[in-house]
């Protein structure tokens, strides 16, 4: 447990260093860009130097990293270059919408993907399995923004049953959830399907059959608990990978979440906002993975033994 937390902290550190380096080692002087945007195109080299000093960009990289992390730990992520507004309150403000989007999409992916995968494993090679596998392939392949556009076109514009953009109550949540959750649902259903199929070929399942249990009984009572913890891990990974998807979906549906904030920063090359959003994504990613690891260890004695060593 303590070791798991230590690993998480270490991962946070490594990730933040990587992100910091990738962003700050990119060529092209951002201070010039900022100086030009702030004081017009005719920024002199003095302006640029003054700006660099003001932003602390003239200090060596390790100092800048340490300074940044020190302030970040105290909850101060600095100010955005674009509007010169403090970043922390903005991020806190926007986190709710992204959380709503991603958690809804994750639940959608888990329910739909899990159901399709289970049905496929229950009736292998039947029509429902074929349809399920086809849908899984299509879902995993279709770009989320294309699906979003088709959903808007059909349900929003043609039928007019749900709002096409913005955030106005539960009806406006549905399309973004589906658009973001379909890809992970496709991947997840395949994992569940294959996992269950393999579990059903193992000795314990054969024992179940020979005792006279039906395929459904063995699947629900034996195979599902067996693969449950590991597929939960897959779902968590899929959820962690929804972040770039959230950037797209928040842009398409005009939500004001962390994703669209990050996207604005990418477009403007707003280094402080880039770093900060990346840190938030990283934090969410690490927290999610750590939580799932702990839950997995609770549920699955095999994983628990791996953590604790052979002693127990």
């Amino acid at each position, binding site marked *: 447990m303590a070791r798991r937390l230590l690993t998480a902290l270490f991962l946070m550190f490594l990730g933040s260093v990587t992100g910091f380096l990738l962003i700050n080692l990119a060529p092209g002087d951002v201070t010039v860009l900022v100086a030009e945007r702030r004081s017009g195109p005719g920024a002199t080299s003095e302006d640029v130097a003054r700006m660099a000093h003001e932003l602390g960009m003239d200090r060596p990289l390790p100092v800048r990293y340490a300074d940044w992390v020190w302030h970040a730990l105290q909850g101060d992520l600095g100010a955005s270059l674009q509007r010169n507004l403090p970043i922390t309150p903005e991020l806190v403000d926007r986190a709710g919408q992204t959380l709503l989007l991603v958690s809804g999409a994750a639940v959608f992916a888990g329910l739909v993907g899990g159901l399709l995968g289970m049905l496929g494993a229950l009736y292998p090679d039947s029509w429902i399995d074929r349809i399920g596998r086809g849908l899984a392939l299509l879902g995993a392949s279709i770009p*989320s923004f294309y699906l979003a556009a088709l959903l808007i076109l059909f349900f929003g514009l043609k039928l007019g049953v749900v709002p096409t953009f913005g955030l106005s109550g539960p009806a406006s949540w549905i399309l973004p959830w589906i658009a973001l959750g379909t890809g992970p649902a496709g991947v997840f259903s395949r994992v569940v399907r294959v996992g269950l199929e393999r579990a059903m070929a193992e000795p314990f399942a054969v024992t179940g059959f020979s005792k006279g249990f039906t395929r459904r009984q063995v699947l629900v009572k034996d195979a599902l608990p067996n693969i449950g913890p590991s597929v939960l891990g897959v779902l968590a990974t899929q959820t962690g990978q929804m972040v770039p998807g959230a950037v797209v979906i928040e842009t398409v549906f005009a939500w004001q979440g962390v994703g669209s904030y990050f996207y604005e920063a990418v477009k403007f090359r707003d280094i402080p906002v*880039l770093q900060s959003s990346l840190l938030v994504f990283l934090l969410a990613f690490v927290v999610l993975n750590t939580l799932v690891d702990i839950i997995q260890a609770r549920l699955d004695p095999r994983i628990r033994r791996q953590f604790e060593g052979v002693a127990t």
Partner: protein
Amino acid sequence: MSLAEAESEIVLSEGSRARSGARITRQLRRVPLPALVAVGLFVVIGVVGPWLAPYDPNQVDLASVRQSFSGEHWLGTDSLGRDELSRLLTAARTSLVAIALVLGLSILIGAVIGVVAGATGGIVDEVLMRLTDVGLSVPSLVMALAVLGARGPGYYNMILALTLCWWPAYARLTRVAVVSLRQQPHIEATRLIGVPPLTVLVRHLLPPAVAPTLVFASGDAGFVALAVATFSFLGLGLQPPGAEWGQMLVDGLLTLEQYPMLVVLPGLALTLTIVGLNLLGEALALDSLPRNISRRTLRRRIAKLPPLGVGRRVDRVDELTDAYFGRTR
């Protein structure tokens, strides 16, 4: 196929070098026809598309804006009067080149790092692999987005950013292959008879270590295609007026209700390509674990077996086993 699956597959399949060629042919035969058609079309159009295009894809014609399908413009025109078909055909090359470059560079970087790490071992191996682990443990697309944010948008910047975040998986795979290869008798034999280490590296370790990464890459191509399209959709890839499916789609979004075809067509091209690539990858995915098959499938396979003659009973057991696991000899 996940990275972990691919890794275990490499370890399991070591020592069966002679059969690996046959295995790849067998896997290729398993690729469904629609996937071959989709991927084949994509590659062919990617190569010759710009020459097939009936019009200059960037030719603005404000007199014929947003036309629907006609004999003159088969798939209509976009908001600047540019020929939609020509743009769709040209865009295939944009995607194909981006996918090929990202995967090619990742395989190359991965091969160099993986072979160096696996062949030298010790501290070099440790440092390189921890670096790879960091790359693998952070969400790669987000990192790529951040890199693009720092460097600014552009086609080659996008390829660079994606490559930076894509190579770790290939480094890991190559290293796993090299490490397990090094324990093989024929590699030890080269050392015994005094072959220079560099020659062993280049002639005996590199080719068999890179081969499995190529298979992995084929399954990876769909993800790269999706990433490229996403970046273009966000306006971070190829800049206007160049044609790219994701970017054409975002252009069409403004007039989604009035002219849905400007969104549907590029999206369709994109989806077909990615479905094809994913099907290809799925078929090439090496599954090492036996699976249950349905009674119907088994019956169909048994029906195809040669008739049972005198003295063939022992073969029959092998044939039935093969039929069950779907193997062909």
